[in-house]
């Protein structure tokens, strides 16, 4: 049975401290518990969580949904946002964790990547380099989310064409966002339209689509 790897990258820089990061955590918790009740996700989904501020940490290496525990997420008081380094770690983890097909064996589904950030990358050079690296790899979907009114969507557009904006950083917004993420994870098993291609479910109303 193919696995569906889901990588979640979360900005933990100083500006996320306090209510925003607590809301993210709440949203993640709600997402995990709802995925754990979804038979399709329980069968296929594997989750990894990487956080980034001045330091980049792989808080949760790729783990089967049913045996995963949500790790504690901490934020420093201030400091840079090393988004580029986070993408670098992501690529490294993928090389180690994602199983590719061989003539004898079916590999994993291509991964889903969600990245949530409220600022712009501080390591801009590395970020630019890693954006083209990520774009050259095959993903089932790369979804970037700019959180908060001040969040800059421009750098994210370099990473993916699917950039969304959350205006508020409260728990109900994040909960809706992560509910949507869990719908995306389960999407492969829904009815397929007669006319169009495979499509993501439409995002919740709080999410603004950046075209």
């Amino acid at each position, binding site marked *: 049975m193919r696995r569906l790897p889901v990588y979640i990258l979360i900005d933990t820089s100083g500006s996320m401290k306090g209510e925003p990061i607590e809301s993210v955590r709440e949203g993640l918790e709600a997402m995990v518990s709802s995925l754990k009740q979804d038979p399709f996700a329980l069968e296929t989904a594997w989750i990894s969580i990487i956080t980034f501020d001045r330091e980049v940490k792989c808080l949760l290496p790729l783990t089967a949904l049913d045996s995963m525990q949500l790790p504690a997420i901490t934020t420093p008081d201030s400091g840079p946002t090393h988004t580029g380094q986070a993408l670098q770690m992501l690529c490294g983890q993928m090389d180690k964790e994602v199983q590719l097909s061989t*003539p004898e*064996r079916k590999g994993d589904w291509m991964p889903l990547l969600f990245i949530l950030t409220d600022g712009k990358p501080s390591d801009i050079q590395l970020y630019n380099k890693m954006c083209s690296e990520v774009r050259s790899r095959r993903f089932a979907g790369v979804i970037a989310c700019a959180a908060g009114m001040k969040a800059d969507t421009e750098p994210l557009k370099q990473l993916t064409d699917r950039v969304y904006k959350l205006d508020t950083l409260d728990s109900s917004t994040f909960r809706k966002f992560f509910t949507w993420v869990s719908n995306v994870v389960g999407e492969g*098993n829904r009815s397929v*339209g*007669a006319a169009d291609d495979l499509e993501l479910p439409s995002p919740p109303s709080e999410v603004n689509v950046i075209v």
Partner: protein
Amino acid sequence: MADIIKVKATDGSEVQFINEVFSSGGMKDAYWCPGKKEVVLFFRDKVDARTKDRLNNIVGLYRDRIFNQPGGQYWSKLFCWPTKMVEWNGKTGIVVPAYDGTFFFADGNFKGKEKNGKWFASPKLRNKFLRPQDKGTWLNHFHMLIKIARAVKRLHAAGLAHSDLSYNNVLVDPPTGSACVIDCDGLVVPGKYPPDVVGTPDFIAPEVLSTRTLPVDDPNRKLPCRATDRHALAVMIYMYLLYRHPLRGSKVYDVNDEQRDEVLAMGEKALFIEHPTDRSNRVKPEQLSPAELPQGDPAKLPYTICGPYLKALFDRAFIEGLHDPDKRPSANEWEEALVKTTDLMQPCSNPNCREHWFVFDNTTKPRCPFCGTEYKGVLPVLNLYYSPSHGKFLSENYRLMVYDKQTLYMWHVNRFVVPNEKISDEDKKPVGDFHFHNGQWILINRRLPDMWDKTDNKQIPVGGYVPLTEGRKILLSAKDGGRLIVVQLVKN
């Protein structure tokens, strides 16, 4: 507290609902009606005139054809069928009955969740997450599948096709042997209303998947229809009995692109994992996780454990008819084969057996394929014969396995009585029962006025019994269609 909205349905009746979305699906938002016996589903997007026309026919004409006929009540348990169409704030909606409570987990980790069929069709989910009381026995699964096959048969008989049969659209409850077809608003009327969807992964017919990229009006494009429903039904039956997908083997069709590999494996190149001669898509059990075993390994539990009638249909569905839609078995054939197979079933004597029932394997040493427990003792097998003309009896390739406290029914007695939705209440009553009594197997006659022991040439009166000994011939009924049974004893 949300307010209550009152609208007029297209049939002129009043519909009330609570103005608060309680659930959202792919295309529709759901609102409760006061009392929570019904739900109004509003399409989020504007509905075109053709879809409106279709919905109107589904709540009117087609509903009439199925439900407002003699015996129509029977179907209300098997379908969650839209009853009314409404318009509100420019949106189109349908009123549907709320799902029966039996289709939700009552407690445990998944309390309140719908019993999506996926739970019961995947070895990993069964072995790791479901509790024994959620799973039911293997016999329960047969009962559930008989209902599903019957519901599909009814749709097809009414000239309709479901077009999206899948775990998501058929709710099931194995412990009670229940099933209910939902999402009937996407029904396809061949030639009149084309389908909105091509189906759900795992259930899409190969010809639909391999022509999916052609334009909808291309003559070579294959869209869902009754023949593709038949494929989906066959997949569903295989999965609910064997807990694995019939086409998901180890063969890799595209090393570099797993999406394309998937489309080929389920479409153009689809190949049965248990194909008798082409072994290239066999499951490699070492590639499965421990939680997927033993069910995931066809070598351990081959499809032949489902008995001869179903084996023949699986062959037609997944070997001859996989790429030749006209050869696929009809829903009616599946229903009959499932019913006949339940007559071949034996309870497993091992109280800890995972499935509790198995199909008699036609050997002299019957054993349960699930736990390996052998049947010990004498096992009567009744071969059924019918009489095309007076005094002459022909085999029907129909057998009834006997177990302690098993019942005999009219559909065993008379070949013109068929155990389907049309059967009368009178014919549903047991007419006899089998017992292992004082060291021998006996059949007690409860209601058959002219049961006759041909071997000893004497009547078996109502309330009397006949021992089941090797070769004994018993005429169950002298009426037209009445059957003769010949006893065969398996000793182990």
